[in-house]
């Protein structure tokens, strides 16, 4: 089975995340890490490979040169090879454009299963996996908290706001996974060393065959017109419980007309 897993570098959610007021794009000058949900997607790809002998896992990313680090992390965890879509002409792509570039890079490579995180921590649109299924004509099985592949059948539990659905599809399919799916393994020392030797295909705009007037932030479908930083929240009154704190909270709520 040929498995592709999508990975992406994002600003560290433990740090201070900013939007650049000039470009109106995410400021990527700070600490960047592979999105945690992507590590889980890689884990699922590796588990699927281990259960289906003869399988191969390809880690795929799109982004500037630095984004290669996310692919290297996946290779260190055990992915076999990588694809890095890198071109200045793709900078500022929206989800519609990102899915077009990913679809162009993945089409005709014979992938049976494409695995992604359900949504990134920076954009949080959760749109690219569905768009990719649409563009490739693959079945879509997304927001899965469990995943089983049996022959050509893929099934799992799809997370919803009030519970879950049991869902099934036939390969080829695009699946996305939620954070409950698995704990990601740590790369071994040997894995880190061998990651440097694994092959990563560099793919440019010319290789994708996309029209130049459809790509990049200057031609995106959705455009951010204005970004305003909201004032930081100020702390209020903090008391130490002296035996009356519960009553004092109630008094605060009454004074604020909240109860």
């Amino acid at each position: 089975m040929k498995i592709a897993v999508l990975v992406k570098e994002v600003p560290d959610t433990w740090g201070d995340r900013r939007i650049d007021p000039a470009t109106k794009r995410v400021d990527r000058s700070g600490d960047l890490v592979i999105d945690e949900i992507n590590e889980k997607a890689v884990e699922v790809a590796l588990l699927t490979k281990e259960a289906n002998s003869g399988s191969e896992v390809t880690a795929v990313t799109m982004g500037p040169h630095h984004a290669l680090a996310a692919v290297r992390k996946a290779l260190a965890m055990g992915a076999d090879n990588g694809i890095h879509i890198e071109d200045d002409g793709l900078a500022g792509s929206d989800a519609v454009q990102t899915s077009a570039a990913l679809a162009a890079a993945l089409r005709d490579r014979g992938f049976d299963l494409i695995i992604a995180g359900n949504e990134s921590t920076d954009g949080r649109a959760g749109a690219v996996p569905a768009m990719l299924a649409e563009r490739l004509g693959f079945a879509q099985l997304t927001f899965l908290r469990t995943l089983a592949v049996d022959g050509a059948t893929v099934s799992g539990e799809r997370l919803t706001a009030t519970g879950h659905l049991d869902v099934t599809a036939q390969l080829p399919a695009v699946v996305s996974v939620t954070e409950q799916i698995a704990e990601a393994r740590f790369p071994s020392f040997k894995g880190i060393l061998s990651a440097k030797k694994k092959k990563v295909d560099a793919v440019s705009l010319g290789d994708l065959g996309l029209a130049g007037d459809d790509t990049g932030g200057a031609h995106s479908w959705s455009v951010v017109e204005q970004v305003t930083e909201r004032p930081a929240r100020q702390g209020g009154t903090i008391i130490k419980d002296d035996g009356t704190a519960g009553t004092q909270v109630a008094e605060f709520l009454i004074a604020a007309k909240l109860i």
Partner: protein
Amino acid sequence: MAQVLILAQHVDGELAASTGELLAAAAIAGDPAAVIVVDEGDGAELAAKLGSLGAQNVYVASTPNASGTLITPQVAAMHAAVQAASPSAVIVGSDTDSREIAARLAVRADGALLHDVEGIEGSGDSLVVSQQAFGGSYSVRAVAARGIPIISLRPNSVEGAAPAAAGTVIPIDIAGDTAPASTISGRHEKGEQSERPSLQTADIVVSGGRGLGSQEKFVLVEQLADSLGAAVGASRAAVDAGYVDHTMQVGQTGVTVSPTLYIALGISGAIQHRAGMQSAKTIIAINKDADSPIFDIADFGVVGDIFTVVPQLIEAVKARKG
């Protein structure tokens, strides 16, 4: 004015709670019309309900086992309706299905995806949406530069209702759809008729964290919530520890809430939790560790034992409410 299409989701003949709000949002930007997909029949009953909520036209796709198929029938129906109605915008809800339907429709109908929208202004080419980024740290205004705007709308974003309209049924045909289907073989969901308000739309949210210590003791959170008529939430730590179900998770990777009042019990307030609740109007925190970051954003904080403070608070709330 051009039509604005909404997707009306329904289960067992009941429209989703957000339907009226979607039609009210559509009325801001144009003439409201709805799209529904039914397993059988002509959809007349749902169309009548949609008319009373403001839909002038109701585009109905009838296809066998639509309710047992994941998303693709709705994508095909929305696309067929877009072709039939030439709308100036499309608006769907913020549930996972609707968000993914919007994503696929943006590709199929060559539209611009505007997700997690919390406000709509203007109409036609001058439609602008407001969104938030990084857990409410930024306000964003965005537009569709190419194609029609395809919007997923957060609940409680638009006030009022659209005036009642005819709800004229217009059948649409999706028999030619070739997208590979995924099958839904089982539904395990709590109904919307739960006694507590839903987390995403509640006016008051009471959340518990690791400080509760166990699944049994988490009942304290529920008791305070019930005394206030509030929804119950949880931190990721409490979900990971198995105290409560994942559907209650508030934070970066869970539900984002902006209630009037948010009460955090035994929650340290990691940055990922704050990303899901810091736009609440008033925040109360009770936690035994004085150094917890939750106190940096709390309007009123108590350093103390939740198991002594909260029962006292519940008594005081009950006394107040009589």
